[in-house]
Structures are given as C-alpha cells and as structure tokens.
C-alpha cells in the first residue's frame, strides 16, 4: 500500500511538473502572437492586399554602442524597412567585435550562420568562403546598380574566384593623429622623417608628455604600426612576396623595420605598461589629452571628434624611414563587411534587404556625421554639412592615397598571424635581435603552410 501511494505521488508530481511546463509554453505562444499582431496593425491594409509569408531575418552586427552613429543609422534603416515591408521582421544581434568573431566561429562550426553577419576581408574571411558558408552576391550587386556605389577596387578584397561574398561598411587608412596643443607646449613640429619623429618623441618625453598612446593588450594595434614601418622600409607587397616565395622574413627590409620599431620602444615612445592597455584604454589616453600622438585607422576619427580633445587634433602621414618609402602609401583597412549565409531560409528576402540597406547606407552615414572612411561614394559637401577640420584633413589624405598594404592578419593565415602578433608584442617588453624575430616569423609561416 505504501508503495502504491508513493508511486501515485510520483505520478502526481510529474504531472504537476509537466503541466507547469505546458503553462510556460502556452504563455510564450500567446506573447509571440500579440507581438506579431501588434507589429502588423499599423499596416493592416497593405497586409490584406498581398498576403505574404512572415519572414524573420537575423542581422548580426558589430554596432552595439548606442552612442555610435552607425548604431543609430542601422536602427533607423531597419525600422524603416520593417514599416515598408510588414511581413519582414529583422532581428538585430549586436555584439562587440571580438564577441562577434567568436560567436560566428562557433555558429559556423555547427553550420548555423545568421542570415546576415560580419566578416573581415581577404585572409580572414577565406576559411568561411572555402567552407561554402556564404552566398555569392553578384546578382544582388547588379540589382539597382549597387555595385557602382562602392569605391573602385574595394570589392576585390571580398571576392574569391570572381564572386563577391561580402559588402564592406568602410574603407580606412592608417594615419597619425596628433594633439596640436601638446606639440606646441613641447615646441615640436610635425615630423617628416622617422628620425625627426624620434627626436620629437625625445622632446615630448623630456616635458613629461606621453609621446604615443597605444592599446597593445589587443596586439593588432602594435602590429598595425609595425606593418606601416615595414611598408616604408620595403614598399608595398612584402607579405605577398613571402607567399609567392620571392622573399622570406629573413629579408633586410623586414629586419630594418624590426630595428626601427625597437628604436621607438627604447626611446620611450609608448606609455608605461602599454601591453596591459586594451584598445579603448589606449585610445582614451589620447582622447583625454594625456598623449601627444596616436597611430590608428581613420575609423577613430568619429570617436576623437566627440572627445575632449576635439578641435586640437591634426593628422599626418607616417613619415619615411631612413629616406625610404613613400608617405602616400598607407596601411589600408578595408572594413568589416556584411555577408549573407548560403543556408539562409529566406535568401532572396535577405538579399533584397541588404541591397536596400547598402543603397541607403552612404546617405544616412553622411547625415549622421559618420561618413569619413565609409566604403561607398558619398555625394555631398562635407564642409557644409558641419564636419570638423580634422575630418576634412582626413578626407584630404584619402585623396592622396597611392596604394599600400593590408594588415598582417588580413594577408596571412590565422596561425601565422597569431605568432606575429605575439612576436611584435614581445618587442614592447624586451629587446630582441631582429634576426631572431625574422626567424620566428619564418618558422611559423612554414609550419602553417605545409
């Protein structure tokens, strides 16, 4: 009897649990229903005419910061599109860059790429393309002649075998931002050669001013600067030459770049403890007027404009090293780009949306004052629209670009890139023979290209 009653109570208990779970489900369902009817209400008439199926598009993006103009313009465009197409619901998945990279890799491993996602150009997106995860966008680029809105040659970084797989939101170059007030205080001029730059660093240091701010905990920042020095000592295309086996890392130009980089470090150019500053902390040193120079891609322009040093900042091109190099060759940074999942349930709808989104992107970015360094042609007078002097200076530099190089991790496979990033970070904390750095690079390259 006791056994039977226990059995009974067990059954009762389990029914209770299941009914609770069922309750949970039904409330969820109801919520979903009301939400969708609410969404459809304002446009009921349109919906009656054309009965279309409900479409949900997931839009993964890297604009989580609500103060960022790009976040605002994305939300504006998405809302507008949803009102015009009531059957389409666009779900935003906003993450910061590193989180997004990680999430996408995890999703890709289980073949669950969101309808729209973000990738980086060239070598970084190659594994995804080779795995067949992205849909080619050629047909969509011809639609409404979207292709013509992009700067010439930009889409090449996102194309493999004549198929374009992603559409970039930006196209930046690397410049040196400098704080005019601090330069004046130390009595120094904008350097035109690397040797002058070292003297400037020395003078600034004597006056107790941090010469260059850098966020080297995120090791790509140092690599970006190093690659610009390599661009001066070697000229463009060094990494490509390594890939084509015309050169090895044991090249005099590479070693000269390493030595020059070390001379900056030994001159005390960077803030103390630079390797523990992440990207934002490093940039903040410059934005709060604590550092005199900041080497970064032009995407930083918007952030500097909204900071306390706005109005005191100018830009200059990275100088020649030992008389070598052309200052008009820049580190090129074709931006992160929107790609569409090949397995998207609503491929056509997603393509239509992205097409419309990109067509409107330049205009909206221009009005949101976020158009410096976007990848598309912008009609409009920047000066009249109230862009700052610094933004105008940056735009001026864009016109002088005569080619250049991509960042290391956009050219080399991830394995080699990781070794490179650590190797450069190491230069910040200890003196290393240039030959040893070259050897480390070469070994990593060979190990990752078997």
């Amino acid at each position, binding site marked *: 009897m006791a*056994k039977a009653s*226990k*059995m009974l109570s*067990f059954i009762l208990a389990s029914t209770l649990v299941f009914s609770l779970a069922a309750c949970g489900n039904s409330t969820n369902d109801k919520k979903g229903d009301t939400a969708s009817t609410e969404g459809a209400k304002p446009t009921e008439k349109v919906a009656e005419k054309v009965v279309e199926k409900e479409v949900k598009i997931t839009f993964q993006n890297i604009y989580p910061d609500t103060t960022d103009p790009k976040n605002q313009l994305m939300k504006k465009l998405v809302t507008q599109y949803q009102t015009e197409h009531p059957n389409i619901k666009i779900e935003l998945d906003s993450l910061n860059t590193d989180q997004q*990279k*990680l999430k996408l*890799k995890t999703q*890709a*491993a289980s073949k669950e790429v969101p309808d729209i996602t973000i990738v980086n150009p060239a070598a970084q997106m190659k*594994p*995804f393309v*080779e*795995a067949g*995860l992205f849909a080619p966008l050629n047909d969509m680029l011809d639609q409404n002649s979207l292709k013509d809105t992009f700067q010439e040659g930009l889409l090449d970084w996102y194309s493999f075998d004549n198929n374009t797989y992603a559409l970039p939101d930006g196209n930046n170059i690397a410049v040196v931002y400098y704080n005019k007030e601090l330069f004046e205080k130390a009595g120094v001029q904008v350097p035109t050669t690397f040797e002058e730059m070292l003297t400037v660093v020395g003078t600034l240091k004597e006056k107790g001013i*941090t010469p260059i701010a850098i966020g*080297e*905990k*995120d*090791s790509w920042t140092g690599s970006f600067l190093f690659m610009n020095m390599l661009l001066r000592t070697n000229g463009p295309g060094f990494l490509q030459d390594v890939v084509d086996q015309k050169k090895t890392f044991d090249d005099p130009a590479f070693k000269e770049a390493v030595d020059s980089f070390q001379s900056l470090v030994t001159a005390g150019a960077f*803030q*103390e*403890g*630079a*390797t*523990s500053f*992440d990207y934002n902390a490093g940039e903040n040193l410059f934005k709060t007027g604590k550092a005199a120079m900041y080497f970064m891609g032009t995407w930083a322009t918007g952030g500097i404009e909204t900071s306390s040093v706005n109005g005191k900042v100018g830009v200059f091109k990275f100088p020649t090293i030992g008389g070598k190099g052309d200052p008009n060759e820049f580190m090129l940074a074709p931006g992160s780009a929107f790609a569409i999942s090949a397995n998207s349930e609503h491929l056509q709808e997603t393509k239509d949306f992205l097409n419309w989104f990109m067509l409107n992107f330049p205009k909206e970015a221009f009005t949101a004052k976020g158009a410096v360094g976007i990848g598309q042609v912008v009609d409009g007078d920047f000066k009249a629209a109230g862009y700052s002097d610094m933004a105008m200076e940056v735009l001026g530099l864009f016109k002088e670009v005569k080619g250049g190089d991509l960042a290391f991790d956009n050219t080399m*496979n*991830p*394995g080699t*890139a*990781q070794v490179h990033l*650590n*190797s450069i*970070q*190491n230069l*910040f*904390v*200890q003196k290393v023979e240039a030959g040893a750095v070259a050897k480390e690079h070469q070994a990593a390259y060979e*190990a990752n290209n078997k």
Partner: protein
Amino acid sequence: MNVLKVSRLTITAFVLPCLLIYFGIVFIPIIVSLYSGLLDWNGIGTSTFVGLDNFKNLFFHDTIFWPSVRRTLMFSVFSMAEIPIALFIAILLRRYIRKPNFLVSSYFLPVILSVVIIGQLWKTIYNPASMGGMLNQILIVIGLESWSRSWLTEPAVAMYSLYFVALWQYLGYHTLIQFTGISNVPTEVYEAARIDGAEGFKADRYITLPMIIPIFKISIVLAFIGSLQAFDMVMVMTGGGPANATDVISTHMYNMSFKSMQYGYGSSIASFLVVVCLIATVIINYIFNKLEKRFS
C-alpha cells in the same frame, strides 16, 4: 539498494534525468573533444584525420606549451600552499574571536565578486605610478622606489602578480571551508582533551588536524583543479601577454582554437588538460586515503 525501501523503478526514475544531463554536458563533450584532438580542423571547413600529429607537435615542437604547463602547475602549487594558511587563520578565528562570523564573511567577500571586476581592480592597483597605480605609489612614498615596476607587463614578474591576485581572492573561500570544518568538530572532544591536559595548539595538533582531514582534502582538490583551469583572470588582466609570458594551459588552448583557428590542435590541448585533471584527482585521493587511514 533496498535499505532505502524504495523500488528500483523509483530510484531509476529519479536518478535518470540528472544522469542524462550529466552525460550530455560532461561525458559526451569530453569524448567529442578527444576526437577533435585527432583532427586537422579549423573549426569551420572540412577536417582531415591526422592521428596523433597534434599531440606530437604539442609535446615536441610547441614553444609556448611547456612554459604554460609550468605556469599552470606553479599556480596549483601556490594555491595548495595557501590552504594551510587558510587553516591557520580559521583556527585563530575559532579560538580568539568571540563572534567570528562577521570576519569570515568579510574574508569571503572577494569570492562573490566577479573575476572581471577583481581583474580590473587589480589592474588599476598594479598600474605604473604615472597612471595612478596604487601599489607603485605606495612603494615610492615609503622610499622603496627601486621596487616599483610595471607589474603586469614585465615578463619576469607578470605571472607572479597574477598568482597573488588569485591567492588573495580565494583565501577567504578556503578559510570559510576550513572554518566550517573546525566548527563541526564536537566540543566534547576538546573538553575531554582539556581534562587530559591538551590545550591550545597541542589540542589542534592532536584533535583538529586529524579530524578535518576530509575537509582539508576538499580544499586541496578544489584549489588544484581550479588553478589548472585558470582562465578568466589571466584573460582579463593580461590576455596571456606580454608575448605569451603569462599564458596558462587554458589561455593557450583558447588562442589556438579560436584566434589561430586551429580547432583540432586546441582540442588536443583540452584533452591534455582533462587527463592531467583526472590523474591529479586520483593522486590526491590516494594520498588522502592513506592519511585518513593513518589518523583514524
């Protein structure tokens, strides 16, 4: 089985859900990652089976791996060395403080705080004096300027700075565990001992220590496994830098799997970690079983 006087069916019905979940989130992933450790796979595209190549590279060619193993093991040794100190504090608290609960809770506080917060807090403390670092400023004020340095970015000291933070955070945790252990020793035993003339530290030596060996073991196992898996604090404070000087096994694994996109290789590091954890647990259990037998 039947001491509980319930049918096997009932036992099965109640145990099964937990067992399934446990299998699903512990055993199956371990097996999957053991298998991925045998692949040359970037995590996305097609994978090729390479047998033990990953392990060969790991053990013989990876210049980062063994130093990171050394750092991880040092970390465990330090965390285990901390436990006697925690025990000592617990004994003092029990003996000399009338209402020790408040103190124990205060010591426990850092454990509740998120590692990210602790990491940021200590990063600011460790900062160079020019950036307002507290530790360096104190050193300068008391005239030890030559001792001041950038604690997190000098390869020689960075790792020790990290150990210290972890030890600081978990001291309260282990103190709490030991304190509870001591409190559970029946007071009659001490009273009896007092009659026999054993008081103070003598009582501790012959009563407290033998009686809390099981609790001591829990602390040791927790400290050891916890430090083998150390990841979050390293990631927040140095990210394994400068130049891998503070990489531990798990950060190396993360860098390989996700940053270098060598998922197979990363999985082989994970397998290594699992095996080390298992072996360590077995060894610790063995030692403590002996100890317990000797003292009981």
